[in-house]
């Protein structure tokens, strides 16, 4: 059961360095959108376009085989980032986080 909703395809910055993967399965445990599966003791990205770049998998990968440019997906934070050159954050006065 996932959210049946899909966002833009082909945008995620998620990358998996499969040779480095030790197959611990932590990414399967933390991903809120079922992006990963485990096959032959290696993680694999199975539904890439469901990735929302929350960063949970990369943060919890003990061998840093996963990278993703995680961040805040709120429009006002992104505009604030454009204007100030800083990384978008919820501290911009945006209301939703």
């Amino acid at each position, binding site marked *: 059961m996932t*959210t049946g909703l899909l966002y833009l395809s082909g945008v995620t910055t998620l990358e998996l360095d499969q040779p480095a993967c030790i197959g611990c399965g932590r990414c399967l445990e933390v991903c809120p959108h079922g992006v990963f599966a485990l096959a032959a003791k290696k993680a694999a990205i199975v539904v890439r376009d469901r990735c929302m770049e929350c960063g949970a998998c990369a943060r919890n990968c003990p061998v840093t085989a996963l990278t993703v440019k*995680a961040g805040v997906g709120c429009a006002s934070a992104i505009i604030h980032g454009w204007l100030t050159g800083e990384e978008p954050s919820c501290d911009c006065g945006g209301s939703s986080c």
Partner: protein
Amino acid sequence: MPEVLTETDRLPAETGLSGSEPAGACCPPRPACLPAALTGERPGLRVWPFVSDWLETPAGTVPQVATRLAVRDSFGRWQMRWGLGRRRYRIPPGLYAVGTPHDGSPVLVTANYKLSFDALRCRLAGLHLWILVLETEGINVWCAAGKGTFGTTEVVRQVRGTALERVVSHRVLVLPQLGAPGVAAHLVERQTGFRVIYGPVRAADVAVFLAAGMKATPAMRRVTFTLGERLVLTPVELTGMARQIGWSCLGLLAIGALGPQFFHPAAALLRGGLAIAVGLTGVVAGAVLTPILLPWLPGRAFAVKGAELGAMLAVVGLLLARGTLGFWNGAALLLALPAVASWCAMNFTGSTTYTSPSGVEKEMRRAIPFQGGALLIAAVAWVFGGFVGG
């Protein structure tokens, strides 16, 4: 429901140690200050209404919390949903007890946003366990994890600060899965000796998860975005924009007076009022209706979904006006309403459970020129319409 009483109203006889009655006046549940607090001798401090009793542990006294929400909790939740006083809705971090846990009972970790804490404790009736509350400055688990305040450092700090290793004999922490963006499980284990198991996304699944030997089903691991989940987010979308809306209304009234109607206040007000109605319709279309109708609006970009809905409403408006608007005013309506709805819908991306920052940035780069252009042309057409009488 216990009343809020001041320190002087409630002294030793009623400091919440009776067990049956929730206490109304004493001390925030911090092990460090409890001995004095237990005798009610901490002027200016009072016990939180959700504390039902106190438990002695090898690491000090720990407050036991109720698993039933009181009326005030529901009222507080309603306030949060409308964005009223959100910055003050936090509870003290530290260790809490549910039921009568022992040294083998599980430890659940959560954020100190009271809404998160309430959502968790009200699902734990009949269970005996510990809750370790992190200092996330009153922010929910997922957002705080994104910021890093629900993070490795804070988990380690609270585990050490509460002397958790003296309270429990096992070495397992159950973290909410949505805390994972901020916490590196392997680093917590390295620094504290506590192994991290990520529990389910929703507090409603915690009891089943625990009963199953800390095993989560795939469904428990998935974030949803149901109609109800979308609906509760919409009031705060509106209240968050209140200031912008107010200034925009004043601006529209001022621009509405430009033209021959400047000398006819009633006509100027009517023009401004109609423009405000169009603007507010756009806001509701983008910030309320688009979230509700999300799965059924064609397209994936929120700016597109909002624009579609705005365009539909603009056409309806045009039909209702039956040609009384004139060409230029009609054109302004057809452009402005979709633009406003599109912008407001795009802003909702920050509240969803499935949009990626890269995607949001991409759609913003594409949509903002159209939204801005449409608004600009609409403004010119509208003002021109004021001069030519249509």
